[in-house]
């Protein structure tokens, strides 16, 4: 169990580093989602299932949905701008 926990903690650091180094925003959001899921398992190991449920629903679910929506909105604005420039 201790080894499993160490592996999870290590992959947590790897996820955080790759969030820092990926250029594409969509990829980094998905990596951030997996970071939250790993965190959820670690909380299960640390004997606090309340936190695990909340993190799975809130951190991995709602937060990443909000990030995706922001990205979509920004892309929509950018596309609109591009079409306007083409017309002009």
């Amino acid at each position, binding site marked *: 169990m201790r080894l499993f926990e160490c592996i999870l903690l290590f992959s947590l*650091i790897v996820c955080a580093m790759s969030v820092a180094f990926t250029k594409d925003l969509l990829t980094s959001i998905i990596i951030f989602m997996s970071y939250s899921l790993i965190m959820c398992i670690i909380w299960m190991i640390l004997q606090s299932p309340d936190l695990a449920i909340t993190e799975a629903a809130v951190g991995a679910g709602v937060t990443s949905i909000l990030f995706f929506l922001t990205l979509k909105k920004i892309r929509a604005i950018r596309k609109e701008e591009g079409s306007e420039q083409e017309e002009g």
Partner: protein
Amino acid sequence: MDVSLVEHLLLNIEETVSIVLFGIGFTILLLHRNLIKKIMGMNIMDTATYLFLASKGYITGRAVPIVVDGIQDVSAYINPVPSGLVLTGIVVSVSTTALMLALTIRLYERYHSLDLDEILILAKEEEQI
């Protein structure tokens, strides 16, 4: 002296990892110019703090603080106080994230850029006009 320091860090591995994560989040917050990346760095800092708190409440070999079979002995359960604190923290961090993302959308609508430096330059030019 040095060896015992590293050993101690390995014994406290959750805290060590949470400090490293905090540092990574802080670095993202300072070095990345993209606003969405900055918000992610902020979120990583949040979770690192929660990991630190939760690991402080953990006691080896004890169970979840849910009373089973009426056993109400202190030596059977882990510390419930950090769990309660972190539970409230997680939900608050969602609402701050939503607020920051909304501000980002408004900034993009205004300046058509996600780069903080560019936004600052544009804002300064606007002031001069």
